[in-house]
Structure formats: structure tokens, C-alpha cells
């Protein structure tokens, strides 16, 4: 169960894994995620977006960045190994323009860093539903881009690359071209996925133009089924559970400062856990 079929390293600390999960592969839709555990005795449950799936082969793809103990342990596993626990698909699927009653139009997808991975199935679905899809990808430098070719295949000439240091594409933040596109007036919808701070500024950028902006929140989770409330955020003044009400929400309504603060709740202990993994010699 949950065997790792293949593994590759996309950049310094980003890995791609294909996992055997036939039922998840069959049921999943763009925007949904899984929760997995590397060790089901003492391990942690972490959410990862389903970046791609092959229902026929019965596999799903996850792309993850090693940020702490669990993602680091995951990155140490090899093809043939099994993931101790894998649950999904969780969360509500993305509402795809053109499939949800609204007419297809021009949708701008903004992916920051690893956020490009979860964007991929969404961009694919948007394209398939007849939308014009523009993709803005941002990273600190050229080496940190993931899935550039896959995104180029969807957006064609409407792919905009942004780097902090100008090592590839334009130098600057993803919010710059986003503002320009909104200013030009031809944007019907924006979807932004990436670090919370990036999503916050994307939402701020589009707000003056009144362009609908969907974001995918990556709060801390435990069960992923609505049982614990650990993933809660305020959206439009109401408390929502990201795992069952989301992960996608209207970016103009999210209380970003609260969300950012809640994500840091366990920082000192996460650091300690990571060091523990270090000491145990698991970090290579």
C-alpha cells in the first residue's frame, strides 16, 4: 500500500514523488490534497496537495519542499518504500471557471515557489474548460523554479517568469505583472497559490480592481476531516476549517495576519524536531 513508484529531485530542497494510491487517483479533483504520515507510531500527519494523478495507473504525484522533520524524512524514502499512512483526497475541489456556471474567460494563475505544483492540475482544468490561462511563476532564483515545462505547455506564450534576483525572466515580485494585467482590464479571475505572504499581497493587489481572487491556504492540520479545528482561519469574519471548508477561499476575505500567526504557533518545537531528525543522522 502507498508504495513510492518514483522519486526525483526538482531543486535543492524540492522533491517529486509518484505514489501508488488507486482510490485517491480515481476520486481526486484539482485542488484537493492528501494527509500522510511517514511513521504511524510517532510521526506527524502532514497535508500535501495532489499535483497530478493517473487514474489508470492508480498513482498520484506529490511535490514537496523539505521544511521540517516530516518532509525531510519523506525525502529520505526511496522508490519501493511505502508511506505508512495516506488519506485522501481531502478538501473541496477547486471551482473551475467554465465548469461552475460562469462563462470561460481570462484566468491568471499565480504560483509562488512550491505553490506552482498545486497550481498545475488547476491550470490544466481551467484550460480544458475553455479559459485563456496566464501563468505567473515566481521564485527567488532560476534554480528554484519547479514544473516550468509543464506550465509552459499549458500557458504557451502567456507564461510570465519572475525571480527576485533576475536570474531568469523578469526581476521582481509576482504582484507586479499581476497588477499590470488587472490594470489592462482583461482579467476575469485570479488564483494565487504560494507562501501565505505572497497570497496576501496578491489579494491586496487585485482588490482595487475587484477581480475575484482565490487562494489556497496551507494551515497546520491534524486530522483533515473537520474533527479538531486546528486548521481554522477567519474568512469574512467567520471561522472556517481549511480542511473541509477549503483549502480555497476568497483571498479578499481572509484574515491574513491571523493566518500567518497561527502557522507559526509551534515554530520553536518544529525547529527542535528538525534538529532531532538532524541528530539522529537522518539529515544527510
Amino acid at each position, binding site marked *: 500500500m502507498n508504495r513510492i513508484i518514483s522519486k526525483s529531485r526538482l531543486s535543492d530542497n524540492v522533491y517529486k514523488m509518484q505514489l501508488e494510491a488507486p482510490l485517491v487517483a480515481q476520486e481526486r479533483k484539482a485542488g484537493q490534497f492528501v494527509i500522510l504520515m511517514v511513521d504511524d507510531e510517532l510521526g506527524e500527519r502532514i497535508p500535501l496537495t495532489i499535483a497530478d494523478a493517473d487514474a489508470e495507473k492508480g498513482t498520484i504525484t506529490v511535490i514537496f519542499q523539505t521544511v521540517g522533520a516530516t518532509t525531510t524524512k519523506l525525502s529520505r524514502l526511496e522508490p519501493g518504500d511505502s508511506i505508512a499512512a495516506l*488519506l485522501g483526497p481531502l478538501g473541496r475541489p477547486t471551482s473551475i471557471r467554465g465548469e461552475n456556471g460562469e462563462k470561460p474567460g481570462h484566468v491568471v494563475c499565480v504560483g509562488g515557489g512550491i505553490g506552482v505544483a498545486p497550481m498545475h492540475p488547476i491550470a490544466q482544468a481551467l484550460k480544458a474548460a475553455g479559459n485563456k490561462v496566464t501563468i505567473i511563476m515566481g521564485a527567488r532564483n532560476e534554480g528554484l523554479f519547479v514544473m516550468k515545462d509543464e506550465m509552459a505547455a499549458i500557458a504557451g506564450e502567456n507564461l510570465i517568469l519572475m525571480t527576485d534576483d533576475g536570474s531568469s525572466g523578469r526581476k521582481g515580485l509576482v504582484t507586479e505583472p499581476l497588477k499590470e494585467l488587472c490594470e489592462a482590464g482583461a482579467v476575469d479571475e485570479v488564483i494565487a497559490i504560494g507562501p501565505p505572504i505572497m497570497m496576501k499581497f496578491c489579494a491586496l493587489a487585485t482588490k482595487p480592481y475587484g477581480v475575484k481572487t482565490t487562494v489556497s491556504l496551507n494551515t497546520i492540520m491534524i486530522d483533515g476531516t473537520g474533527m479538531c479545528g486546528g486548521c481554522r*482561519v477567519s474568512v469574512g469574519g467567520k471561522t472556517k476549517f481549511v480542511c473541509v471548508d477549503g483549502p480555497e477561499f476568497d483571498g479578499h476575505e481572509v484574515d491574513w495576519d491571523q493566518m500567518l*500567526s497561527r502557522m507559526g504557533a509551534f515554530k520553536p518545537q518544529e525547529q527542535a524536531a528538525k534538529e532531532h531528525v538532524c541528530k539522529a543522522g537522518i539529515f544527510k
Partner: protein
Amino acid sequence: MTPKEKMAIPPQAMPEQDAAVRARNMNEVALGYTAEMAKTEASRCLQCPTKPCMQGCPVAINIPGFLAKAAEGDFASALDVIKETSLLPAVCGRVCPQEKQCQKFCTMGKLLKDVDKAVAIGRVERFCADLARETGAEKPVACAPKTGKKVAIIGSGPASITCAADCAKAGHDVTVFEAFHRCGGVLVYGIPEFRLPKAIVRHEIEAIKQLGVKIENNFVIGRTRKLRDLIDKDGFDAVFVGTGAGLPKFMGIEGENLNGVFSANEYLTRANLMKAYLEGSADTPFWHGKRVAVLGGGNVAMDASRMALRLGAEKVYLVYRRSEAEMPARKEEVHHAKEEGVEFHMLENAKRVISDGKGAVAGLECLKYELGEPDASGRRSPVAVEGSEFVLDVDTVVVAVGNASNPLIPTTTEGLEINKRGNIVVDPETNMTSIPGVFAGGDIVLGAATVILAMGEGRKAAAGISAYLSK
């Protein structure tokens, strides 16, 4: 022995870990009777011909029957009597609110004018079950010939465990689907180790596996597979929904999303299921609260406040808006919590969580309450005393004001009737829902209830399922 002699036998006290020591460890608090104590306690039973105690037990265990065997020291036969109607005696003996159930009606308690002096039915029950488990003396259970019918059980709490066991014994081919990586429902993620050792739950799960029940963990119905697909595509002939009441209620007050405010479900799940208390080896972190306020007065609130002590809190306040007499928690847990040093703040309620300006809890503003006139139900409802605000100096708040039912299955299953509280509506005789062949029971039907009631529902549903399948 004459009744008079029996009345003279002192009630056997439960050996316990010392309060100061146990408040800092996870080991079980109540250590259990010795064989001698169990025999003596059982011999206090008057063998009342009308068996009043039985009407207090939701599964109607033949209480005088098993106590008579236990009084002879024949604990194996005593357990056989218990198992005629109850599947989880080691669990129920520990967690049943006996003072409101079997022991409430006990003649001995009435004669001695103190429900605490009733025959300690639960403790003897626990002893019989523990003895058999620890000595490997449990008898294999026979299953009826295979019926060729497939039954899916959703969830693995006490309702589901019971339904699965009964269906397997009836000869059906049973598969349990559980969302978590461990089975047992609230018994593993909610009720702490110090009250219900997880080895006992694991043992009960092993027992249903031995009946041939298959278990699929990490499988969430409504997401991994829809309920209707189990019937339409996967060939199941009947389905039992035992998904519990897992949707935490919050107070809806200001500051409730600050860091350091947790639902009891999250707080307890981190500590129990995810073993966060094993700091240094478990990856899931817990919040190092030094001064903790727990809101609520039920078992969940007792568990959360006692867990807070064990996770290193220096002060734990239990804030409840009614008085102690109204607290729904088991009496023994209230007593234990007090002994361990939990400070009870009765007739008070939280008004607002105060922020430290950096996103974390800096205090809890509370209001004092008083009991008003009795309402239609005869219960005196608490009313806030205006202007009575004061601040509790805490860095952690655990909200334990109840659970509503999780909407995942109802919202993904067309045609499944629920009531206005979100509970699944069932036929009271068979526990069948509005969808033929789909049954439900436990907290998802009753609202947050008890282990023994959930078990009783699972049993009733299993009978309903067998009747349905033999049509």
C-alpha cells in the same frame, strides 16, 4: 449471609496512584481491584429478585448474575454472563457513568443512603475483563456459517466495533473503514491513556479481527469513496454509519482563533493519538501552556484539564457556567481532577480571550453567573451577572463545550435524512436510516453520548442489518 451482614461489608475502595504523582504521568490512575477485593465487593450484592440495577444499564447486563459468580471467585463464568450482552466490559467498567446508570438503582446504595456505597458494579466488571485479557483466558467466539453478505462499517468507535463484531458473528463478511491511522474512535483520540490504556482498545480491535473483520485505515467515506459507491460499485449489501460526533463546538467569542486556544479535540488528539507527550520522540508538537483554562463541565473538560497538568501546566482552571451539581462529567473524574489540583471555577463563563498583541493568548476575561428560575424543563439556567467581569491570567484556553455531528457523510450522501441538529435519523427499532440498507448508530445518531449507549446502538443496528439481509 444475611442482608444485614452484607450491609456490614465495607465497600472496597479502588487502589489508585497517589494524586501528586499521577498528575504528572500518563499511567492509569485507577489501578484495579485484586481478586480478593473483587470477590468481597461482589459479595455485597443482595441478589435482589427484581434486579433494579439492570434497568440502569443501557445494555441490561445480568448484573446479579455475574456478581454471584464473581462472589464465588469464578471470574471466568462471571465474564461469560457479562459478555452475553456487553462486548467491551474492560472499557465500560472504566468509563461508564455508573452513578447515573447501574449503580444509581442499586438497593445497597439506597439502603446505605449513598450512591457511592452501591455495589461497585463497574469495578468488578472491569476486574473480570482485565483478568481474562491479562491471563489470555478469553474464550474463542464462534461465528455462524457464512451468509455471503457483505457489510461495510464506517468508523471504528465503540458503536462500530460492536456492530462489526455482531455482524461477523452472524456470518456476514465485514469490512471496517476508518479515517484515522488507528482504530477506536474517541477511545484512542479522546479519552486519555491515564483513564483508558490504549492497549485495551488495541486488544478489542484484535478481537474483532480474529472474527474475520477486515480493517481499512486511512479511508474516509465521502472522500476516498462515497457511501453510495460502497453499495452501487463495491458490492456491499448493507452499511453501518458510526462516525461519531466529531465536530468541535467553539464559543464564538472574541479572540478564539488566537494561538493557544484549542478545541478539546485538538488538544487531546495531539496528546493521545499523536503521542505529543512523548516529547523528543513524537513529531507532533503540543503547546507548552503554563496556565490553562478549560471551558466546560463534561468528561471532555475533565480529560483536557487533567491532560494539561500532565503536559506540565502549573495552574489549571476549569471554568463552568453552571454549578458542580449540574456537571455532566462522571463523578469519579470530577473527584480525581480536584485531587490532582485542577481549580474549579463554577458559575463563571468566558467572555473574551485577550491577545498579547502578537497573536497569542494573554488572558481570559470571564463573567460570573448565577442560577436563575427553573425553566420549562425544571433546570435552573445560568444567567450572567452584569458588570462581574474579571480576568483569569492564562496563556492557554481549551474549549470543551461539546461536539456537534460531522457533516461529511450527510453532505456527500444524497437522500440521507438528518435532523436539525445534524444527527442522522433512524428507525428506533432497527436503526435503519432513510436509505434502505444503510444503518447508523452511536454519537452520529444520539449526539454526543456515552460509550455504552454507542455500543448498544451498534448492537441494535447489527440485529437490524441481519434482519434486513435475511429478507
